[in-house]
């Protein structure tokens, strides 16, 4: 579970005003959602305590004044292959690169936007003109000033050409004006409500024009020794071993960062990661760096804390993608039966050690604005599953077997393998025999999205804050079989669904979009091309003397500029 499958951004906002409204609604619901299920945990599991600890730790400690100094050692696993997020949306790059570069606009802990390199921003009423007022006195790490020209150049030459998701996001940006060095005006041909929320340091990274213009951008040497404007400067990258960042003393956010240095260590073995954290050689590791079992043990130590905040922006959900072109599986009753055969609560506890929440829809429940709780439900019911299978004509043979399938799983770690094993058992109970098949990632994506030679697979996507960004790709029919990783795996074609998606994309009315996305959830939960199992919850393992470690809902892809040690002299 180390790699994000998608780095897409939030496209929810249409204007700063609606944005605020939406985000506040989200925050309130967030709290209530937790309040809703925490007590039941408390009664049963020791995990509740741990979870609650994570929550309380998430509240920033503003009482104390931050202290400067110290070296932060972080686990980088897997090692990034390129250090510039403008050219790669993979998560190892994202977790590193956002310390060297700044966002034009940043997130706070409640999904509100706050100034970054842009001090002010405004989207016109028709959603077609975006004006950014850039901060004065910001320099690149090589001393050259940061200007509107950098933004314009990056938009036109990097985002529109190479950035996997900004290509779509900025496709309608046909003209960029820079009346002066600190003003950027972007003209879109169509309403582009989504663009504002995609301007954080991971979403829209601005590259230094003076180092990139006229070069082969994909092979520019600065991709791997980046020059940014961010809180830390790149110092060295020793491949296979470590990466070093040094404090940027001229950072525009005066007084920050507090840390002198950040060292990323590549530690490929899970056991070694646990040992390094336990011993205190490493003080920070994000994106569930350890098996949950180890994390649970480590969290009992006085020097280690588990953090579950800072991932809200990802909205990840785990699901079973079912190949709807296979015999048996193409019958919706069989898919319903398989869904009924899975005890999602047991699955959550056994495989994920209680992390996460049982899912009923591909849009996670924390996205209250979009989540539809009234979708068809498929409670754990073995009898019903058997009845549905009989009805579909998949009766038990002489040996009690109805039919045989193969389960592939995303090779991202132990939990996925155990998921496949759990499902094998669950399906066996209703007479469906399953073989579990393992392969490496390229073979896997090829099998699912290229050759489509599979029956059922365990998979997860980031939904992000707007279903348009991360959810609809599982159901849109235009990507089927084109070998585009993490798109429509099931081969599900429904003209109605395609229409809903297109309407939501073109709409300028948020209320209408919400309605459309709810209709989409109703439809796909009726057709069940994929079975949502779990709303995943990531955790960060961090040293307990590290403060202010969450300063945005996108902290997982954010910077360490607010981090500080209670006693920097120890580090």
């Amino acid at each position, binding site marked *: 579970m180390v790699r994000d499958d998608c780095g897409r951004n939030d496209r929810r906002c249409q204007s700063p005003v609606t944005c605020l409204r939406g985000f506040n609604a989200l925050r309130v619901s967030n709290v209530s959602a937790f309040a809703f299920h925490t007590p039941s945990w408390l009664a049963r599991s020791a995990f509740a305590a741990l979870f609650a600890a994570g929550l309380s730790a998430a509240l920033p400690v503003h009482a104390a004044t931050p202290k400067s100094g110290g070296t932060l050692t972080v686990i980088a696993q897997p090692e990034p292959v*390129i250090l510039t997020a403008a050219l790669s949306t993979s998560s190892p790059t994202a977790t590193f690169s956002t310390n060297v570069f700044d966002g034009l606009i940043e997130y706070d802990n409640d999904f509100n936007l706050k100034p970054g390199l842009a001090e002010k921003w405004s989207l016109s009423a028709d959603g077609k003109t975006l004006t950014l007022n850039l901060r004065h006195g910001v320099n690149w790490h090589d001393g050259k000033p940061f200007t509107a020209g950098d933004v314009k150049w990056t938009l036109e030459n990097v985002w529109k050409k190479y950035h996997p998701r900004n290509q779509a996001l900025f496709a309608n940006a046909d003209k960029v004006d820079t009346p002066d060095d600190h003003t950027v005006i972007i003209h879109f041909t169509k309403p582009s409500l989504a663009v504002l929320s995609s301007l954080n340091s991971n979403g829209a990274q601005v590259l230094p024009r003076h180092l990139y213009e006229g070069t082969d951008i994909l092979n520019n040497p600065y991709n791997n020794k980046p020059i940014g404007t961010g809180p830390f400067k790149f110092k060295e990258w*020793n491949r*296979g071993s470590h990466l070093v960042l040094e404090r940027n003393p001229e950072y525009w956010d005066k007084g920050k960062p507090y840390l002198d240095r950040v060292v990323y260590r590549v530690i490929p*073995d899970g056991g070694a990661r646990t040992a390094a954290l336990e011993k205190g050689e490493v003080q920070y590791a994000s994106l569930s760096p350890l098996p949950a079992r180890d994390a649970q043990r480590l969290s009992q130590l006085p020097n280690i804390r588990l953090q579950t905040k800072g991932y809200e922006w990802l909205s990840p959900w785990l699901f079973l993608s079912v190949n709807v072109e296979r015999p048996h599986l193409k019958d919706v009753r069989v898919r319903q039966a398989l869904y009924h055969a899975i005890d999602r609560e047991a699955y959550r506890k056994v495989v994920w050690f209680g992390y996460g929440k049982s899912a009923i829809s591909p849009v996670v429940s924390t996205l209250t604005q979009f989540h539809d709780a009234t979708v068809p439900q498929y409670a754990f019911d073995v009898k019903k599953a058997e009845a549905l299978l009989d009805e579909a004509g998949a009766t038990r043979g002489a040996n009690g077997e109805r039919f045989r399938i193969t389960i592939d799983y995303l090779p991202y770690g132990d939990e996925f393998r155990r998921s496949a094993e759990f499902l094998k058992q669950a399906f066996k109970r209703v007479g469906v025999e399953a073989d579990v098949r393992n392969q490496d990632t*390229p073979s896997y994506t090829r099998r699912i999205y290229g050759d489509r030679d599979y029956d059922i697979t365990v998979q997860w996507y980031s939904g992000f804050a707007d279903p348009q960004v991360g959810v609809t790709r599982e159901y849109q029919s235009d990507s089927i079989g084109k070998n585009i990783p*993490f798109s429509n795996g099931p081969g599900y074609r429904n003209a109605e669904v395609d229409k809903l998606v297109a309407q939501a994309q073109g709409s300028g009315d948020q209320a209408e979009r919400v309605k459309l996305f709810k209709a989409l959830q109703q439809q796909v939960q009726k057709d069940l091309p994929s079975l949502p199992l779990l709303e995943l919850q990531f955790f960060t393992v961090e040293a307990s003397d590290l403060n202010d470690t969450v300063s945005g809902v996108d902290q997982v892809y954010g910077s360490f500029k607010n981090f500080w040690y209670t006693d920097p002299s120890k580090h």
Partner: protein
Amino acid sequence: MNRLMLALRGALQLIGVALGIATINFFLLRLAPGDAVQVIAGESGSASPEYIAALRAQFGLDQPLWVQFCKYILKLAQFDLGYSFRQGTSVANLILARLPATLLLMGTAVALAALLGGLLGTLAAYRAGRWPDLLISCLALFCFAIPVFWIGLVFVVIFSVWLDWLPVGGMYSVSAGLSGWALAVDIGRHLILPAATLALFYMAIYTRLMRATLIEIRRKDFVRTAVSRGVRPVRLFRVHILRNAALPFVTMLGVQIGSLIGGAVVVETVFSWPGLGRLAFDALIQRDFNVLLGILLCSSILVVLVNWIVDALYRLLDPRVRTA
């Protein structure tokens, strides 16, 4: 003339092996499903078909296989191992950057293993059937049978976490900014656990090999003759037994040094050691075939060279080989 012919034959042999290995590996690796672009697209998650096509064109993967192959061989002829688009640097650079770490780890481990294994094997052979032999044989079997990663992790838990004597992993303390002797000591401290882990496995092989060979040789007629001639035990061991036992030992050493470049993926992974084994493994997972081909090629050339050295050693050790 004879020597010249030999040298020529050797050079031809080397070129032939290199070419053969390059060809076989080139096509063999293409059999693996998926390519580098697919991996990159998979990691970024949201790749558009245009983005994928642009990457393929850049990597040269859009050309027919035979064109790719010809280009590769042409480059090889100019001693160019190619370029890793994924890593954004030349393959030679990547390999050279990892080589010192690999040589240090493998060299230490193999030396340690040969020394200890030879000693223990000898001891066991001289006490064959008695308790020291039993003890040593059990130890060797134990080390041989236990998975290397498990030994490594147990070492980490005992020596790093519990006793806090040694660092958990890595090759040196990055944040300390050491240089000179301090750095050497620091690297030494980081080296102990991975080298010991790896050495234990190899040691088991040497121990068993040495014990078996010595027991066999000590039963030979010429040994009995020497004993009856009154040759003293130390001289008997040094001149009559050891030299004969050295042949299989040297062969095994040659095999292991030949696999040196391949490194020890498992130990490197457990101890976060930045060696070539991990580079090769990652390259395979990422379908970064230029890197993998480069490592395999270097590795095969090393095997050929080591074989020559072993052959030479045979001649030195055993006069019978010289005349043959």
